[in-house]
């Protein structure tokens, strides 16, 4: 059945009726607005007038004090120091340069201060007061105060400025705060934190300062203040006090960190020391470091370029982001994998002619020692770091079993430490190679992985975590830095619990085999015998050498003929005391050469300090690092 057609005239009447209804609605809503405005501007006019005109009211954010960062013994790693800064309010001021000229007659203003001022002026669009000088000394404060009448646009402020007492030595670890940039602001807007950062100029950028920003920042308070015509506060109307940020107690031992940094001398590299039972990081070093204070005051272009373009890459956190071939330090793990899978018994021996080759192939995978080690069992293979043994073993295990085992002990994935920007490293598998290069896996690549070369990459942190697992008898703990979070006001402390990453089902006897061999590495006859000499406690260690440049078939690696930057990286992993480990260490020295010579002595100094409280003898420290002819 077809519905009747509409009547256009009736439709138009209906429309006009509806239009009239809406017209009255418009009138009604307008009346509502007028009533509301009249209420504000007539009835409550007095109230708002007082608020705004007699003494203007302003809501001032009260910025909380940032939490402190402390080491495990309470030594301060980041604090807030009271300093005086001179700030210019750029609003309505057209001759800023002339003003600064006049100001420089009273206090010292360097060209870099000027540059920084103009940079900040551009960034803030002149909406907020901008510092022209910070860290004024008492004489300068006095001189400015006397001349204050000449500079109505300039104010002197006492501000808390972040200071890092350890400076370069803990730069990557503690990180730094810097001015809130537009990118930071967008991020804060996205996280709906804009209100919390009203009045705050700085935000944590890196390291602990960056990762724990929300703990350290605190809660912004507010105050309703009456201000007079020139904007000076007269009276507080109501106040919500700010809540200071929490203090962070790190597991870092500042003394240990210092010893480690000094032990590196001028070498580049990284060191991670952990308590194997808890995963607490005792020292986290990346060399060279940088001066974190530069970023707090605002770094100028020149300094930035210098840091950023330096071939030493001081801004790169090698401990977390440096990915290196672990070299022979994988051998104890290879041995464990073999024992776990039952592929080889400790007493099984091979004969090492100085190379490994596949049946029917002439390609030789060479041992580091020409002529080979002769008859080698598992113990000796670790003590002497026999390559042929592990070429052979890798071939027996196969890449899939190796990939499974190494993934289990943290290779190729982030450790989950409480810092940002950690690299994943890499433990290859045929699936990975197919995906990455669209190529098949070759048996030769398995063999190379057996001695921690080829595609295998690990960060010093991953190595420390893995060797910590060995020390902790198969229980791998997640490395972490913050031990406790302390409420600054109440002193109430929240302990951070240690977290187990994985528990490997390993036989104690198997672990003993590997540990005993590692102990002999640092004893006479082992690859790190020199570094272990005279230690009153047993050190279980393993040296490693990571190739930077490949050595061709038939060629020989010769350190003295290789450019410094192309020399091998030295690696050393260790834990001590071997029977009741209290510290596990991974050291990497870039282009340091052999692990036993360059990396192990650093680890020794660190362990001596931690276990014996012994500081290294000053002249011995750099000397021990020099390469012997």
């Amino acid at each position: 059945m077809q519905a009747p057609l509409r009547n256009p005239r009736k439709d138009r009447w209906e429309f006009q009726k509806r239009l009239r209804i809406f017209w009255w609605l418009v009138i009604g809503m307008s009346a509502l607005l007028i009533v509301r405005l009249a209420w504000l501007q007539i009835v409550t006019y007095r109230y708002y007038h007082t608020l705004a005109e007699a003494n203007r009211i302003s809501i001032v954010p009260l910025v909380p004090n940032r939490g402190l960062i402390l080491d495990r013994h309470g030594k301060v790693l980041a604090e807030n120091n009271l300093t005086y800064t001179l700030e210019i309010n750029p609003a309505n001021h057209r001759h800023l340069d002339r003003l600064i000229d006049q100001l420089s007659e009273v206090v010292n203003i360097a060209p870099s201060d000027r540059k920084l001022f103009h940079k900040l002026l551009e960034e803030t669009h002149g909406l907020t007061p901008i510092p022209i000088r910070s860290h004024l000394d008492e004489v300068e404060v006095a001189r400015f105060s006397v001349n204050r009448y000449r500079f109505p646009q300039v104010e002197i402020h006492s501000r808390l400025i972040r200071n890092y007492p350890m400076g370069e030595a803990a730069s990557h670890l503690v990180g730094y705060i810097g001015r809130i940039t537009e990118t930071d602001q967008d991020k804060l807007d996205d996280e709906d934190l804009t209100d919390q950062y009203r009045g705050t100029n700085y935000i944590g950028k890196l390291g602990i300062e960056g990762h724990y920003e929300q703990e350290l920042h605190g809660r912004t308070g507010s105050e309703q203040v009456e201000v007079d015509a020139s904007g000076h506060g007269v009276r507080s109307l109501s106040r919500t006090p700010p809540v200071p940020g929490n203090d962070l107690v790190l597991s870092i031992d500042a003394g240990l960190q210092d010893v480690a940094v000094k032990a590196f001398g001028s070498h580049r590299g990284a060191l991670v020391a952990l308590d194997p039972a808890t995963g607490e990081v005792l020292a986290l070093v990346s060399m060279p470091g940088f001066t974190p204070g530069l970023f707090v005051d605002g770094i100028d272009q020149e300094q930035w370029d210098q840091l950023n373009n330096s071939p030493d890459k001081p801004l790169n956190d090698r401990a977390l982001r440096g990915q290196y071939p672990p070299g022979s330090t994988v051998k104890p793990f290879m041995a464990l994998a073999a024992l776990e899978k039952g592929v080889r018994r400790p007493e099984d021996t091979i004969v090492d002619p100085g190379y490994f080759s596949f049946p029917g192939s002439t390609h030789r995978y060479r041992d580091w020692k020409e002529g080979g080690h002769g008859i080698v069992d598992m113990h000796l293979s670790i003590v002497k770091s026999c390559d042929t043994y592990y070429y052979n073993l890798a071939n027996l295990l196969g890449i899939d079993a190796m990939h499974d085992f190494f993934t289990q002990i943290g290779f190729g994935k982030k450790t989950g430490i409480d810092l940002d920007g950690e690299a994943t490293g890499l433990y290859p598998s045929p699936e990975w190679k197919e995906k990455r290069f669209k190529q098949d896996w070759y048996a030769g690549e398995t063999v190379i992985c057996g001695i921690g070369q080829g595609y295998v990459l690990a960060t010093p942190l991953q190595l420390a975590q893995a060797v910590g697992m060995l020390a902790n008898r198969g229980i791998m703990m997640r490395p972490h830095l913050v031990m406790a979070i302390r409420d600054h006001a109440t002193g109430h402390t929240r302990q951070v619990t240690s977290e187990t990453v994985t528990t490997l089902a390993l036989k104690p006897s198997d672990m003993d085999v590997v540990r005993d061999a590692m102990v002999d590495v640092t004893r006479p006859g082992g690859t790190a015998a020199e570094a272990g000499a005279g230690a009153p406690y047993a050190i279980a260690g393993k040296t490693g050498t990571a190739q930077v440049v490949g050595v061709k078939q038939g060629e020989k690696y010769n350190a003295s003929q290789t450019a410094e930057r192309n020399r091998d990286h030295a690696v050393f992993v260790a834990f001590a005391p071997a029977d009741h480990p209290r510290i596990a260490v991974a050291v990497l020295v870039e282009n340091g050469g052999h692990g036993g010579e360059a990396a192990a002595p650093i680890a020794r100094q660190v362990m001596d300090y931690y276990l014996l409280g012994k500081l290294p003898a000053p002249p011995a420290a750099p000397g021990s690092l020099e390469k012997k002819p």
Partner: protein
Amino acid sequence: MTTFKAIRQRFLAPLDPMLFNICLVLVALGLIVLYSASGSDMAKVVSQLRNLALAFAALWLMAVTPPHILEKLAFPVYGAALVALVGVALFGEVSHGARRWLHLGPVRVQPSEVMKIALPLALASYFEWRGKAIRWKDYLVAALLLLMPAALVVRQPDLGTALLIASSGFYVLYFAGLPWKIMTGGILAGLAALPAIWHMMHDYQKKRVLTLIDPSQDPLGAGYHTLQSMIALGSGGVLGKGWLHGTQSHLDFLPEHSTDFIFAVFGEEFGLIGETIFLSAMLILVARGFFIAHEGSTPFARLMAGSLSMTLFTYTFVNMGMVSGILPVVGVPLPFLSYGGTSLVTVFISIGITMSVHHHRKLVKQ
């Protein structure tokens, strides 16, 4: 002379004198307030003048375009805007936590703005096309046309704009004779769905509604805008503090004082008297639009003039309500006063369309 007259006839005749003159008055008022709100910064005024040139060009172009061409364009434009909205959802640029912008080569467009005009245009064309044969299912189709873009904009998330788009579409439906029974039912269903909507809202949106009830709850956060604009308005009194003599808005207490909150600057400096004059001018604009709708000879003309005028009033009401603290803070600019090209062009296009349906009414009758 005759050629001059012919040119004038051709180029200026479509411009309804009453609408046009009120526009000029409001635009002048806008520039005066903007100069004060931007801290006597001529650069912003010059930039707004450029926006105005573009807006007037758009107005004229709309006014000279006959309605039957607008009807033909309606669906392609609507379709393109809808596709663009889907594009925004898929690859839009994220800014401040919302996806609103779409990059098309060098151009950045905000499809939700286009939809503010495209939706009423499409709905009015649909009803014009159905003409005498409109039935229940046509309202259903129209509702679908309305809900698709609204839902996409809600997801951006931009609840404020979504509500404005939906209301401009609803006005067309209402004027097209949407049965009262359905509307009553819809309102009841809406009330019933309130708890569910509340549950679906983002935290910042909830905060805005809650602070409306008590702005002093969160003086640094969501209540900050409202509290500051109420202080600015209230201290303005009946006569205002005088042009360039506002204090609250000039001391940077007031955020967004040249865009969404410019009415607070205006109210502080020109007082209740100034506000009443502004609102009256807006009412004359709406009244003229309603008159044109009343006289409209085709459903398209009536629906466009009626719904666009009502939409213009809605923007005015929502913005003034937000600034004076009776509506939650949503990012809606005030027509004519707020700084920014997008809203200006949108407003002028809708006035241009209203002029067009009025100017071309006799041609249709013949």
